[in-house]
């Protein structure tokens, strides 16, 4: 099951909008801005999501090897499928981890990496060692995959107690995207306007 494409498109639009308001963009020379605009436009025309790309096969292979080598865990197939669609993001207080920068050819650390973040979380909270593969976080939540069962879970960040289990990883990532886009409506409002192709599962923003 794919991640909600509409959420990814909206996140991409939001990132492009942020970029064009940024000091980074303003400080580019006119030819550099023009070149960047062309690249963003071309990607969008080809049906990709500029600034929210999926991971490439070579990077995924390196990530899987590093997880096994450094943390002794296998990268779940479901996570590989997700990363092919969205290789991490940081938005609106929600972070989804991606392929670590040092595993890429250009070593560009665009988002927090799965190996580094799990190393750090496991070191800080030893009771989680080899229990969860953490895939992201927000102020209130830690998102992960329970390694024994493969079940996607949300943990309370303060206590690491389990808050919810999802039926699929796509559903969990849809929820992360949902909050990243800033949607915190109550149940009634949500049901009024939500198209039927959206996840009907748990929304941590409405827990």
């Amino acid at each position, binding site marked *: 099951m794919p991640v909600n494409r509409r959420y990814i498109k909206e996140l991409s639009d939001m990132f492009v909008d942020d970029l064009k308001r940024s000091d*980074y963009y303003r400080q580019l020379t006119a030819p550099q801005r023009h070149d960047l605009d062309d690249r963003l436009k071309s990607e969008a025309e080809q049906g990709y999501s500029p*600034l929210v790309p999926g991971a490439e096969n070579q990077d995924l292979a390196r990530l899987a090897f590093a997880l096994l080598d450094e943390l002794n865990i296998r990268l779940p197939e479901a996570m590989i499928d997700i990363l092919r669609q969205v290789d991490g993001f940081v938005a609106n207080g929600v972070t989804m981890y991606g392929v670590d920068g040092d595993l890429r050819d*250009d070593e*560009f650390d665009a988002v927090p990496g799965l190996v580094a973040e799990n*190393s750090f979380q496991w070191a800080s909270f*030893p009771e989680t060692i080899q229990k969860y593969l953490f895939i992201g976080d927000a102020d209130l939540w830690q998102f992960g995959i329970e390694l024994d069962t493969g079940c996607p879970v949300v943990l309370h*960040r303060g*206590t690491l107690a389990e808050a919810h289990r999802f039926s699929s990883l796509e559903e969990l990532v849809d929820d992360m995207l949902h909050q990243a886009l800033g949607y915190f409506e*109550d149940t009634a409002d949500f049901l009024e306007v939500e198209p039927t192709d959206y996840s009907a599962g748990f929304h941590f*923003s409405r827990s």
Partner: protein
Amino acid sequence: MVKAVDEMIRNLEQISADPSIIGKCPELPGVVLDKILSTCVDRDGPEYAKVARDYESLRADYLKALVMHPVGRALAALAVGSAGVELMERGRPPAVVAEVRSTRAGHTRSRRESFNCHHIVPKSIRPHTDGVSINHPTNFVVAKTTRRGLDQSENPHHFWHSLFLHPQTHNAPTEPHPVYVVRPLFPFYPPITQGFRSVEELRSKLAQIGAPALPEVWENRIMEFSRATKHKPYAVPKEFHEITRLFGELYKALNKDPELNRQLRASLAEKASRLVADFLPAGTYLNGKQLPPDHTIKTIIPIIESQQKVETVVKSTARKRQPAKRESRKLVTPQTQPQVNQQKV
């Protein structure tokens, strides 16, 4: 909400009139430990669910109100820049685009310096101390959460959480007991991205970015923070990354032997407890055990007890789902003017 933000700023000012409190602990400049008598909230109960739900709907309003307040706006401009202020005006946590590159396959991606809004007293704790309201601006801080590989030096919130909060709440007793939480003395942490060697330099920076002038009390705090970090951008001290390094060294040598893993967990937990014990007084619960009566603090960090009752009430405002707004906005100075420093420059 703007009134609640005003109350938060006044509360911060009242914690100490003496700006030297900012640099008392060089490892943790600009923060104090707040002693909160607390118990853990029942996570399955309605109280916990309500607190979580309310926070999600309050946060956007809080971020907007923070940059509507003249002092909040000036502090925001210093901490997150004009682009960050613009995002907060739209109810979003600040993030700064640092770089854009194309991947091997020709897809563009960007690296963003990020900030999150965090609770000071976490929502998993039920305060028994008067004056603490979990979902109130007096309990929020916008903290930097940038991570670059294993380098967590720009992620102070994670540092506070793993060093102080987790050892105190893990295996904590069920009866009310004191928990020491990190309370930043600024609404943003770190409060500055560059050093200021003189107050004139600070005022010039604020004028340059079109931010309101700061009252003297905040100018003094910013200057003190800059002195404490030796006029460099703040980074979490390297010695507190030791747990991560220890983990890396130990873990690579291990296999799935349960006994070896048990030893690893014990070793890491002991290491973390030893680190935090240097900051905390006798009687504090760490991993369920109290520090003994003869325990002495090795690293002094100011300790306060929040007791002032919250005067303002904030209400959550549920929003219907709608696409993110994209209209262009200009960073403008709010109409309300702060009480600015009257010193001649």
